[in-house]
């Protein structure tokens, strides 16, 4: 590998600090999955709570899990936790109001 000149290529005085790339310049490079999944999760959990649909609530739980798995580390954990808690509460409320087991759609 080594180049022919034995001089050390490192230069201490040329160090530049890392600047995280701004997302306004390239919004297309960002992965929209966690945001979409978050939104879907909230919508489904609201549906499950209001319309008392069990399957909506379960899908909401899945959505919030997927959103969490795809989230960036810089994102707020509070948002994740809130959507997670909302979906869990939707499931619990659906079962409290109607303890019958979920019937499959087929």
């Amino acid at each position, binding site marked *: *590998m080594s*180049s022919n000149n034995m001089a*050390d*290529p*490192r*230069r*201490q*005085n*040329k*160090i*530049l*600090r*890392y*600047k*995280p790339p701004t997302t306004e*310049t*390239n919004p*297309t*490079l960002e992965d929209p999955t966690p945001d979409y999944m978050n939104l879907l999760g909230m919508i489904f959990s609201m549906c499950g709570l209001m319309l008392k649909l069990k399957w909506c609530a*379960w899908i909401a*739980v*899945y959505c919030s*899990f*997927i959103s969490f*798995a*795809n*989230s*960036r*580390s*810089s994102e707020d954990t509070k948002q994740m936790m809130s959507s997670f808690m909302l979906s869990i509460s939707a499931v619990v409320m659906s079962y409290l109001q109607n*303890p*019958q*087991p*979920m*019937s*499959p759609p087929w």
Partner: protein
Amino acid sequence: MRIFGDCLRADIVTRIQQEGSGSTMRHLSILLLPLFLLLLAFPVSGGRYNDDFDDGEDLADFDDNDFAEFEDMSDDAVPEAGTAPPPARGSPSLRPDEDEDENEATVELEDGQDGFDDSDAQDQDIYSKYDQEEFEGIGDMEKTGHPMKDPLIIHTVPAHLQNSWESYYMEILMVTGLLAYIMNYIIGKNKNSRLAQSWFNSHRELLESNFALVGDDGTSKDAVSTGKLNQENEHIYNLWCSGRVCCEGMLIQLKFLKRQDLLNVLARMMRPTCDQVQIKVTLNDEDMDTFVFAVGTKKAMGRLQKELQDLSEFCGDKPKSGAKFGLPDSLAILTEMGEVTDGVMDNKMVHYITNHADKIESIHFSDQFSGPKVMQEEGQPLKLPETKKTLLFTFNVPGMGNTSPKDMDALLPLMNMVIYSIDKVKKLRLNREGKMKADRNRARVEENFLKQTHAQRQEAAQTRREEKKRAEKERIMNEEDPERQRRLEEAAQRREQKKIEKKQMKMKQIKVKAM
């Protein structure tokens, strides 16, 4: 006791009625009133504790209204559809012969029913029977409604009352799915982390010998090497290296597959993709001459040419084959001019590329790099985007998704190639012809851009002028003093006049020139 009490009551009532008025009568009634009330209270309280009486057999015969419900239910209760037998407190009257156990009542259940019945139906029964006793005529009418024996309909117990949890199989499925997701998350996260670590371990030495700063997250006060990767995601790791001749810095992004997301894992089973390592080297102005060049897989070249601003503007031709230089057929070249290709593709570079052609996705050198084409709402951006001299490398990790940490060592020669490219680009200079061509190209691109945005810039200028006029008018209107108002108005009018004159002069000049 109850019978006695009632007898007494009856006697008292008759006696009172017979003796009619009279003071003695009145005295007697006053005296007897508390006694009467007391005696009245007895049967009412005693009536509640139905379990306590011993003479159950007499009840069947007793004709009082309080017991009518029990009496008549022995006839009609059994064939009635769906009604359970009366609850425990009523059953002793039904089966008077079974009243050996004094206080507890035995309840015989029909098949398929538990002891809890519909209290509503039972109430209705009671009331209908009550009506029958009170109103004789109606009793006959009702009885005609009930004569036929309705068939026994045994309802199935609702699922949530069944004590088996097999009926909850959908829920169990859901929970199992969630557990599977969580397991996959943990496994995927660990795998990605191990891959990243093994990559870093194999490349650490090379990087540390070339860069003064290896690993920086931008937050610490001093520019000290952190010596580890920044984790942006569960599948994206960054590394910033800086402090070298010929370049400003190098950003390495390990873009792994989303192994932590089960949905992604399932999608990848149908459409396999591979992990990628993206390297972006930013250069100072003096480190690179003006040229645009790219080499990579045909698919990648086609895509980049469409997406990236600089490649689409400067490398207008379709991707060419690199067979002239001995490159494999899978790779294609996009270049600004032939001289650039000759300059970049020296022996060593060709050697690198041919040996590792399967791992190379794209290599892109550009002095006009500004990222992908930006589409704004107005249609075109009003200013040329900022450009930066950049070298971009995208490598595919071998293994097509099923990579093991050992595969990361295979990428080490590619990192060597990157370092070599940085040094090479610094030395690569176009000759005079090439330089002229390059400058002309850049001027052409800028002109095109200005032409395209000309209409828009004109519009923008127009709006600005109108804004100024309006602001001035407003100022004039808001002026309190009529004198000053008049003067300002006159000044504005004079300015307008001057502008019109100037325009007319210009038109005249153009006409003269045209002639």
